[in-house]
């Protein structure tokens, strides 16, 4: 087992290196220097800037410095030589990369995790209903709605969702059920025990954890919009998984030996359909971290998607590289985890 895990890790190293290298190459197609300088920069200033940013050096040197805890150049002030550049200075905002990335993660998660859970449960349920009534009008209607949901742009859902869900609804019922925008982090009173070093308040604030009471007001609406959008895709997928399972022999056997329909569906079918369901969730998992850019922009949720977009379009290499490297690690880790889980369940996998 350990050998297998080790093999998987080894296998994924070149993929990780590839992601970071590919991104670094892509970013460097354009010269970032002008974005950093004021209107009236001279040639000398431009050259000096290039040295300062450390982009005058060969790409591989920059790559090595980014990946390893070493510092190959004492001149530049921006690259500190920390692994994955967490301590580097951002080129766009006067701050370190870590300070920019850290508070963005929780807001993203507070949207995507509930959305993933909700949409998985809902779509499995709808898929089950649909599959159980396969070919009947209810199945057709559900499939048709799923396709309709898939055919409208996410952006349109957001624009109308915000208008009707937050603004119009508040006007109509005279009570603010959903806020138009915003994000409420836990703001705790100064308490807590001084021996602990890092206080809970400090911890919660550092990571921008959402407050429990503020969450429904600020995040529930975007979560619902996101669920509605993904529901179409997921329902169709789970429906076909379930239908496929329901035509297999063991179900037929179960039915033949007189199991009640409910037991067949829940006990036999759903349990076996778990593998593709878990696979799909596992595949989606890393994408959960990056959040939903459009939702974050419209609902002013200070998440990672927004952060990444701002820093990409402002040619801020350090932040972009670090975020992408972290995403890659999460992706690869969840990949390896999936593989290992499979191997645990099904010993045949280990041999291939």
């Amino acid at each position: 087992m350990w050998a297998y895990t080790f093999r998987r890790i080894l296998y994924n190293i070149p993929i990780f290196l590839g992601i970071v290298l590919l991104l670094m190459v892509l970013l460097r197609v354009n010269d970032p220097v002008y974005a950093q300088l004021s209107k009236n920069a001279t040639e000398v200033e431009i050259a000096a800037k290039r040295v300062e940013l450390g982009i005058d050096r060969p790409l591989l040197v920059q790559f090595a410095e980014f990946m390893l805890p070493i510092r190959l150049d004492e001149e530049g002030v921006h690259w500190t030589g920390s692994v994955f550049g967490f301590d580097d200075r951002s080129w766009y905002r006067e701050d370190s990369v870590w300070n920019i990335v850290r508070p963005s993660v929780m807001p993203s998660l507070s949207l995507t995790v509930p959305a993933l859970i909700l949409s998985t449960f809902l779509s499995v349920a709808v898929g089950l209903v649909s599959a159980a009534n396969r070919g009947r009008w209810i199945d057709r209607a559900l499939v048709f709605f799923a396709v309709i949901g898939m055919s409208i742009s996410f952006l349109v859902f957001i624009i109308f969702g915000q208008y009707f869900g937050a603004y119009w609804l508040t006007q109509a019922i005279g009570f603010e059920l959903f806020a138009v925008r915003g994000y409420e982090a836990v703001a705790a009173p100064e308490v807590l025990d001084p021996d602990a070093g890092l206080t809970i308040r400090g911890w919660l604030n550092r990571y921008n954890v959402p407050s429990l009471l503020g969450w429904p007001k600020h995040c529930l609406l975007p979560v619902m919009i996101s669920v509605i959008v993904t529901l179409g895709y997921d329902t169709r997928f789970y429906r076909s998984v379930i239908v496929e399972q329901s035509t297999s022999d063991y179900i037929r056997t179960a039915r033949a030996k007189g199991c009640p329909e409910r037991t067949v569906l829940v006990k036999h079918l759903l349990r076996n359909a778990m593998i593709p369901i878990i696979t799909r969730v596992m595949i989606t998992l890393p994408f959960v971290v990056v959040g939903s850019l459009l939702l974050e922009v419209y609902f002013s949720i200070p998440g990672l998607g927004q952060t990444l977009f701002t820093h990409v379009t402002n040619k801020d290499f350090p932040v972009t590289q670090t975020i992408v490297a972290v995403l890659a690690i999460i992706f690869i880790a969840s990949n390896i985890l999936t593989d290992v889980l499979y191997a645990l369940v099904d010993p045949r996998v280990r041999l291939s």
Partner: protein
Amino acid sequence: MSDPKPTSPKQATSADSPPDLLAARAGANRPKGFFDLPGVRKFMRNRMAVVALAIIVVFFATAISIMVPPGLIKIDAVTERVGLSKEPGFGRLAAVKDRISHADRIVSDVDKALRTSDPQSSLAAFGYAERTVFSTEPELVEDKLGEVNDKFDALDDAIADYEDALDERDAYLKDIDAAQVAADASELAALSDAVDAADAAKLAQLELLEGEIAELMPIPDSLAYKLRLLLGTDAQGRSVFLRAVYSIKTAVQIGFVTSFIAVVMGGLLGAAAGYFGGLIDHAVVWLYSTISAIPYLIWLIVIAFVVREISTPDDWKFFAGIPLGQTLIPVYLAFILTFWIGPCRVVRGEAMKIKSLDYIQSARSIGASQKRILLRHVVPNTAYLLFINMSLLFVGAIKAEVILSFLGLGVQGQPSWGIMIKDAKDEVINGFFWQIGAATAFMFVLVLAFNIVSDALQDAFDPKHVG
């Protein structure tokens, strides 16, 4: 998990020449026609899919007729002002407030033409498409303008009266509230009647004004003009209908080019990887694992941004004399570089399976070259997969274009549904839904049709797919 099922229609037929789209079209070794293929027949039985296919054909035909010179709709027609800002479609009346500003706009535009060095020819040149000033004689127009302005003054008075009436009623209600006595029903009714009367008077005055305006700049009766105003106008007074129709071209162009190239590229790489295995396989798998590790929206943003912003060398900036940013190339590249992965994965798996099948083994044993086997047997056998993938990617491209355009990284220099949605995003609150509605509706129809067709294709051709 996904062992090939012997019951699939594909393997039920003769071993050395399985039925598939491409081979069948080429007529290779098959006596029967294209429409007799079991998959095709199954597809044709699905009535909804056939309708959807017809819709797609209509969209494609429209796109081609726009693209091929002389072109059904020229780009100039799409950018031309055909009316006032944000006119509603289907001849509906705008809100009172907007009707006033529309009238005001016409007055100030005509006035501007009158004040140039040569008013006569300025008046002749001025107009919203075919809607022109009733006369090019400056004196006549001047007179008419005077009449219009009189009506405007009357309207302003009417509005003031109306607001006074409202104020009076509100003041009364407030007094009652303060004094905490019951309202005198008759007095309140009288005040409300006064409000209604003033409102009616205001509307009547507005209609009089619009009557004058219609004389100043008569609305043409021609069908061509009506058609252009069918879905209203955008903030610049351009025809929403024409822009939405023209966007079909943009969408089909983007969808077709990117899905086609992505499928060809992914298909070839996947087939080669699956068939040859070894180093090639490792390289291809490494490449797509690398790219798919990062959410595709991020790659899209990075690639689109990088290509649009390319700063050196200078000649890169231009493509056939057009600045790179103004072409669709950045969008194409962003989509192709992320989209090829899907077909590549699928085809690779399929090719690995096909490789071990008997007829390939026998082809190899009779000495067919590797290239021949790959191109004649492996690739054609995955054709249905490629076709399904292409229709999925087509939809993906159209939808992704909206997001990119919203972020300012998408289409430039021509209308697209994404651009229309982006332009309209702040109009929704003002209750102006025409532009966003038109773009969404057009896109919806095409995407829905594609979704239905690709479902039906999967039903018909993919043995593993369950409908």
